[in-house]
């Protein structure tokens, strides 16, 4: 049975419909990603799940609890990490953890949590003196201190440096290993590809795809792109004659060949037969990024 069920969710802000009929179900133990450009309605969707916003239509249940009903019960089972929320500057890390753990019926051991999140050295540091990454980790710790069954992480790695981002990914996997279902909002392809079991792609308030990262990639045509620097000039017709090859283009000293199936073997065989070697050979495969472009008609980051 699904742990989060969203059915035909609608949320409007005045004239603007931010979320327009989104439905999905998250299975227990999954890392479920919500991917989409800024303003697509990702945060509004999770804020409705967190019962921070009242939907205009549709139904949401988390662990069987109606998100529009008993918010007290909902908040016992759902931990939320929000974008842009802070703590009082002078509140210390240990005090924050102790305080927040007192809000829950069955809290986690907050000292162990702080240890896992690598914040033990900062136990007595005031919130205002923490770095961005430390604040972010504390924020995750606070979302987990109630021993939730579901954790919602909204743009959790935004603003982190690459190393801190990789650390956060490891951490998220470890949280899932503790049995927590994770709903991850992101606009980083690499993050979605690396972490998520399944992804909901949201664009302009609508769900445009729901699949595994590999499944999303496979939906796009399976075209491959080969780039290389030929050791001698090559007649393009030799290549375009191959059934596997779709296009051949020259880019500076390089040739770019696209095609399907076993295009790499076909191209290298022709080259070898003509005594040409392929220097700096690279094969690009379709990425989640390409899949996203195919689904929404634009790139994620400059959307």
């Amino acid at each position, binding site marked *: 049975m699904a742990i989060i069920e969203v059915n035909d969710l609608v949320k409007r802000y005045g004239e603007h419909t931010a979320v327009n009929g989104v439905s999905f179900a998250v299975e227990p133990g999954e890392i479920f990603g919500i991917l989409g450009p800024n303003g697509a309605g990702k945060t509004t969707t999770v804020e409705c799940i*967190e019962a*921070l916003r009242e939907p205009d239509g549709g139904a949401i249940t988390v662990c069987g609890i109606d998100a529009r009903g008993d918010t*007290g019960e909902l*908040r*016992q089972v*759902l*931990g*939320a990490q*929000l974008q*842009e*929320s*802070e*703590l*009082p500057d*002078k*509140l210390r890390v240990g*005090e924050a953890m*102790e*305080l*927040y753990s*007192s*809000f*829950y*019926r069955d809290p986690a051991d907050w000292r162990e949590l702080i240890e896992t999140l690598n914040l033990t050295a900062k136990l007595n540091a005031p919130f205002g003196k923490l770095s961005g990454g430390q604040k972010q980790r504390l924020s995750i710790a*606070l*979302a987990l201190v*109630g021993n939730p069954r579901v954790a919602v992480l909204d743009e959790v790695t935004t603003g982190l440096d690459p190393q801190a981002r990789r650390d956060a990914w490891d951490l998220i996997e470890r949280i899932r290993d503790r049995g927590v279902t994770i709903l991850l909002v992101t606009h980083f392809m690499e993050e979605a590809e690396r972490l998520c079991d399944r992804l909901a792609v949201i664009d302009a308030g609508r769900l445009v795809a729901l699949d595994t990262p590999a499944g999303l990639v496979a939906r796009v045509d399976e075209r491959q792109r080969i780039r290389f620097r030929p050791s001698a000039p090559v007649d393009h017709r030799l290549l375009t004659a191959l059934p596997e090859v779709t296009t051949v283009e020259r880019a500076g000293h390089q040739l770019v060949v696209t095609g399907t199936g076993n295009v790499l073997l076909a191209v290298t065989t022709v080259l070898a037969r003509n005594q040409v070697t392929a220097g700096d050979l690279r094969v690009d495969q379709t990425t989640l990024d390409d899949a996203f472009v195919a689904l929404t008609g634009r790139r994620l980051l400059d959307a």
Partner: protein
Amino acid sequence: MSALTKLTATETRLFLREPIVVFFAVAFAPILLIILGLIPSMREPVADLGGVRMIDVYLPIVVAMGIALFALSGLSQLFASYREKGVLRRLRTTPVKPATMISAQLLMATIMSIITLIVMLAIGKAAFDVDLPGQIPGYLITYLLVALAMFAIGLLVAALAPSSRSASAVGSLVFFPLIFFAGLWLPRAAMNDTLRTISDLTPLGAGVQALQDATGGQWPQAMHLVVLLAWIIAAGALAARYFRWE
């Protein structure tokens, strides 16, 4: 420990870490009392006041001012800045109810303010020989009513103000007329009938008179207690109505 006690303890600790806020909310009124008491004429009996000294008249006024400062400079700004920074938003993702958060703030403010009251009564007695309240239950009940009425007004200001800056501006705007009617510049005994009638209807005017009556050993007048209750209910209901998490 329950969420309420934990929140109250944490809020108190945070409050004590803000020296400027502590100064205005807790220390300013006792210091003003000492300054007033050091003026020789304040300690002379005044025939017009029936032989009472000005310092006797001023003690309850300064006590009332202390509560107003706490409510309108400390509490309202604290709340508005919590909302502005997203502290309330984060709290909202937990099972804590808004009523618990507000109760914790009120408890903290009441405890701090009672400590200030005790300090002021002790200074008044020890340094300037001002009589301790004759009617102690009446005095305490009045004090709590004044404190609750002012804190409710402070929370209402916080609820209505769009930011913590405007909360402090609106707070001062409300503060000055209220302490005028408390008698800070013109004691109630020296007001004309119209001013005194208006003063009777303000939380600090009614409060100061009731504190004065209790100091003299009488029960405060029912009217003044009713005025205070009405302010608590009206401001409290409006503050709850306009409360916003973000």
